[in-house]
């Protein structure tokens, strides 16, 4: 199991040919209290870098981008009623969507944990 990161603070945890996408603890900390999460439709085809979801804090809306190209296969519908899970447990219960990865080689263009950690120093 590998987890990769984007410079925009999304993570993608790879399980076989599927990736679980959410935002990093650093990102949720920066956003503050999340009050609404808009998730993509299951079945939606996304290209790497496409706007995939939106998180709203009290103050502002922020786009979440697809880390890789693929198709949305599942969304975390718990976030509809409990958007705060993104704050309290962004890496686990606060995941946003699962994507069937079209081209696994795109993962090589993303940051590894060390590379991402350097970015947020």
């Amino acid at each position: 199991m590998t987890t990769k990161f984007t410079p925009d603070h999304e993570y993608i945890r790879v399980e076989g040919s599927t990736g679980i996408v959410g935002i990093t603890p650093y990102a949720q900390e920066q956003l503050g209290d999340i009050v609404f999460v808009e998730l993509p439709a299951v079945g939606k085809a996304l290209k790497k870098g496409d706007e995939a979801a939106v998180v709203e804090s009290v103050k502002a809306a922020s786009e979440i981008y697809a880390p890789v190209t693929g198709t949305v296969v599942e969304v975390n519908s718990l976030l509809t009623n409990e958007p705060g899970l993104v704050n309290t447990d962004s890496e686990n219960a606060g995941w946003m969507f699962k994507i069937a990865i079209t081209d696994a080689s795109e993962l090589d263009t993303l940051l590894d944990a060390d590379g991402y950690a350097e970015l947020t120093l």
Partner: protein
Amino acid sequence: MAEVPSDDLKHTPLYERHVTAGGRIVPFGGYALPVQYPTGIMTEHKWTRDNAGLFDVSHMGPSFLVLNAPTGDAEADHAAISALIEPLICGDILNLKPGQIRYTLLLNDKGGTIDDLMVARTTTPGTLFIVVNAGTKDGDFARIAAAAGDKATLKRADDGALLALQGPEAVNVMAALIPPAADLGFMQFGTFEWNGVPLTISRAGYTGEDGFEILAPAHMSIALWDELLTDPRVKPMGLGARDSLRLEAGLPLYGHDLDETVSPIEADLGFAVSKRRREAADFPGAERILAERDGKLTRKRVGLLVEGAPAREGAEILDASGKTIGTVTSGGFAPSLGKAIALGFVPPELTAIGTKLQVSVRGRAQAAEVVPTPFVPHRYFRKAV
């Protein structure tokens, strides 16, 4: 994601305190100010609604307008200074009692709003205390000084600190610190001594809660800030909570809900057009504003309760059929209600409470309903004058 303040931003006397307390500093009105502290906007907001929040609003524009040659006759001097400011605004300043504050609007010749401000009569004959907004203060001060000509002098007081102590516990905190100031009623103010320095304290604010605004000299401001925070009922608040609190209170924000095109009637601030001024029709844009008051208007500010994602400033307001009829001017999430709320302008025929409208958020229409403002009831402490 993070906003990086530029180097040419002004600092308030409390800047170091904000940084030390872990405030996230952002640019606002030309100043570097905390948008939130580590606990976050939601927690801060609720703390102010339940206890007392302390805000650094030193970016605002406090000032004194002082008659150059007072006669010593209090009423004559007040009439003289009122006659200088009243032509710029729609409020009755002449009939203010000493120690009384009035919310009013600085208007252009077309009846549009140059700023919203507080004008208060001090106990010194011929002297008014005036507080304007941060982003507009240089223009406002120039305008007021020009109107005063050689008859009065506008003395800026924005080199010190202006602190807002807001919330249901604010009065108890004040009673412990400066007991006589706790006897003020809503929209009253006075000068009170604290540790040998005079503080100008108003019972007013921008949260919908009871509370005070305290003007302190810069050299005493850190001591005052620290002293207020030793009270366990008080926590520091950032601009984020200030905005969410004022939005729930239905209070307009200049530059968003008010601008040079928006009249007091359109903004649903008809109460700020004082009766005497209305009858005399002697304020800028009187013709338009009085016609609008009689029903000839094309848009009016309303409060909206929004289903789903918050509709932010700039979002289109649609009627039930999906036709665009207006624009959101302030919008966000209301921590006290757990729902999205917005202020915006719509045609007068769609302003009735309960009118079903929609807002367009990222291209999708969401249900919205016209509701009364304030969204959260005001809890001012009014006192018979």
